[in-house]
């Protein structure tokens, strides 16, 4: 290598270093989220590209595992170190808890400019704001009280969709007679909780749900209605296959897709599995509200909470929040994710039948006041209480607690976790 080549190389390296420095100096958002793979990540990529067009680079910080629990650990480490990410995917009460620590940025100005107050459902706003100030940009709204039915199995069982829990039991009996698994369920606490909250809503109605779940009223948690809830849970348990324990939700969905099982209670994200298996709503599968919960929506929304990272990235942060609420992005993202837009002003033309139904249900429930937070997904109670309730629910479902014991234990657990 001669001198000239070395000089050239050195110049190249220097140039490279300068560009690297330049990239760093540009606006950047660091985003902690747990949409780490497959379609979800691809959906998020849309946001990344949108931001890049505006000159904001995206530093990805994906942390999967346990519905965000590993991500929460990582977040704690970063906040404790005094170096929080710019934006963090957070759920319900976690948002409040973090805001309470005084680490949130203020999005009021942007929200006012873009009129978020008018387009985002008030039930959700409660969680996107802290102390009256916007701290987070909601991405989507999932709802959890769905029942997914295999169309062929349903047709074989008479074709009539159940509208209350007793009809559900009748249908499940027919599935059983067909020789398939009546209800596909995965035995992990959050799935047990998802099923339980749907049963609570179905058995007790929206007011009871508010009382028992949102307010955690001890009387409601141990009363007769709750007894029926637990009894129904025990009964539903008899429709599971023996291998449900610890099974991931998508394996349960696969059972329904393949016709090995008749139905699954699951949030709208499971639609992705159906679409991926090239199944069409209405033709191959049927999406209905969990029997007895028509007119109410238990929601769970993904939000990006903006952390206070100082002036340096504040502008990029605002750009990102704005990009999240951009209707085009909301459509693109939610089509892939199976959820519905967090804004109620978005036309449903681009969405499939299940999503259209979801959007319609959402705006109805929102206006009727029956849009309520999901317990299993952190929109009904703070983490401590939620986990304490899930403990009881999952132990009861697994036969470790009798119904009577569960009724006694549930208010105790809530009290102990407060």
């Amino acid at each position, binding site marked *: 290598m001669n001198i000239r080549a070395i000089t050239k190389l050195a110049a190249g390296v220097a140039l490279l270093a300068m560009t690297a420095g330049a990239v760093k100096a540009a606006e950047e958002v660091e985003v902690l989220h747990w949409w780490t793979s497959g379609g979800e990540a691809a959906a998020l990529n849309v946001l990344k590209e949108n931001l890049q067009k505006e000159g904001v680079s995206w530093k990805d910080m994906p942390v999967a595992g*346990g519905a965000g*629990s590993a991500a*929460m*650990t990582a977040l*704690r480490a970063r*906040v*404790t170190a005094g170096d929080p990410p710019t934006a963090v995917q957070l759920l319900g009460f*976690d948002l409040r*808890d*973090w805001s*309470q*620590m005084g680490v949130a940025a203020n999005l009021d100005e942007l929200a006012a400019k873009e009129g978020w107050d008018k387009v985002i459902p008030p039930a959700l706003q409660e969680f996107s704001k802290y102390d009256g100030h916007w701290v987070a940009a909601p991405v989507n709204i999932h709802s959890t009280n769905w029942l997914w039915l295999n169309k062929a199995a349903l047709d074989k069982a008479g074709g009539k969709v159940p509208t209350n829990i007793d009809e559900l039991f009748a249908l499940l009996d027919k599935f059983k007679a067909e020789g398939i698994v009546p209800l596909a369920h995965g*035995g*992990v*606490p959050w799935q047990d909780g998802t099923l339980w909250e749907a049963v609570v809503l179905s058995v007790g109605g929206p007011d009871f749900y508010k009382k028992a779940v949102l307010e955690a009223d001890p009387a409601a948690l141990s009363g007769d209605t709750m007894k029926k809830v637990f009894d129904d849970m025990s009964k539903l348990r008899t429709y599971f*296959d*023996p*291998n*449900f*324990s*610890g*099974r991931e939700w998508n394996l349960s969905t696969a059972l329904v897709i393949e016709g090995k099982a008749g139905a699954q209670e699951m949030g709208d994200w499971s639609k992705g599995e159906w679409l991926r298996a090239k199944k069409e709503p209405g033709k191959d599968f049927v999406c209905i509200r969990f029997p007895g919960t028509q007119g109410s929506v238990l929601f769970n929304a993904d939000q990006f909470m903006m952390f206070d990272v100082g002036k340096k990235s504040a502008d990029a942060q605002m750009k990102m929040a704005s990009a999240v609420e951009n209707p085009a992005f909301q459509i693109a993202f939610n089509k892939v994710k199976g959820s519905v837009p967090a804004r109620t002003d978005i036309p449903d033309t681009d969405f499939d039948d299940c999503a259209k139904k979801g959007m319609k249900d959402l705006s109805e429930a929102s206006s009727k006041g029956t849009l309520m937070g999901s317990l299993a997904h952190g929109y009904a109670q*703070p*983490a*401590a209480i939620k*986990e*304490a309730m899930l*403990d009881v629910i*999952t*132990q009861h*479902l*697994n*036969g*470790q607690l009798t119904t009577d014991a569960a009724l006694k*234990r549930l208010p105790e657990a809530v009290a*102990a*976790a407060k």
Partner: protein
Amino acid sequence: MTTIEPMPVIAAERPRKSFADRLRSGLPKLVLAPSFAVILIFVYGFILWTITLSFTTSRILPVYKWGGFDAYFRLWSQPNWYVAMQNLAIFGVLYIALCTAIGLFIAILMDQRIRAEGVLRPIFLYPMALSFVVTGTAWKWFLNPGLGLEHTMRNLGWESFTFDWLVNPKMAIYTVVIAGVWQASGFIMAMFLAGLRGIDGEIIKAAQIDGASTVSIYRRIIIPLLRPVFLSAFIVLAHMAIKSYDLVIALTGGGPGNATELPSTFMYSYTFNRNQMNVGSASAVMMLMGITAIIVPYLYSELREKKQ
């Protein structure tokens, strides 16, 4: 380092010394000091910090507001905590006993001048090399009655074969034991194999001349000679049992119900998922006390023995 009197045994140290000599005689301690300081801060400092936190009202992040013994009362009123402790007892005893027994058994087999030792050794050792992030799924499938062993056996025509421990709250903790033993027993095997290889062959010859059978040679002579290996194995296994976390999370996630909760998963979940950092810290303090109760007597006897 203030607790250590500067008085090395080897290097000469009396007055009338140049600075260079002084430096030289202090060098060993100077070399050890950073490591020791780091341990003091990162282990003992953090333990103190954890103890402090357990007396605060910390929930999502540390706050330094006095909370008294509240966290401990909460801890001991949690049914989960009792389940975790009970499970640790079951898991710890079985895990240590089975790893030791199986490790010793394989080591003895491997020590019979077998041909394919080079092939077999890595087969028994490899589970230690893999993280449970990697093997957890495979194990979960294998133990799942509808996917794994039970399914296969029934497909093969053994219709009544049942192996549903994974989904049975009463038995699930034993599946954790199985996977744990699978992971660690090869390592213990290597320790025992090393111990066996280190035994003086003449002792065995002497025993053979005395007319002892192979079984009684092992039972009466070789296994007693392996006593130090048993101790090392116990310590290695005890600390792995107490720290076991990945194992449970990957295999059962603590379920079914809370049937496989362990103190380590309890601590993690209260600190990081349930936003009850003080209760998590209190459980960590309890764990540390348990560890101390096991380790300190061991260390004491071990280090005192060496003195003689």
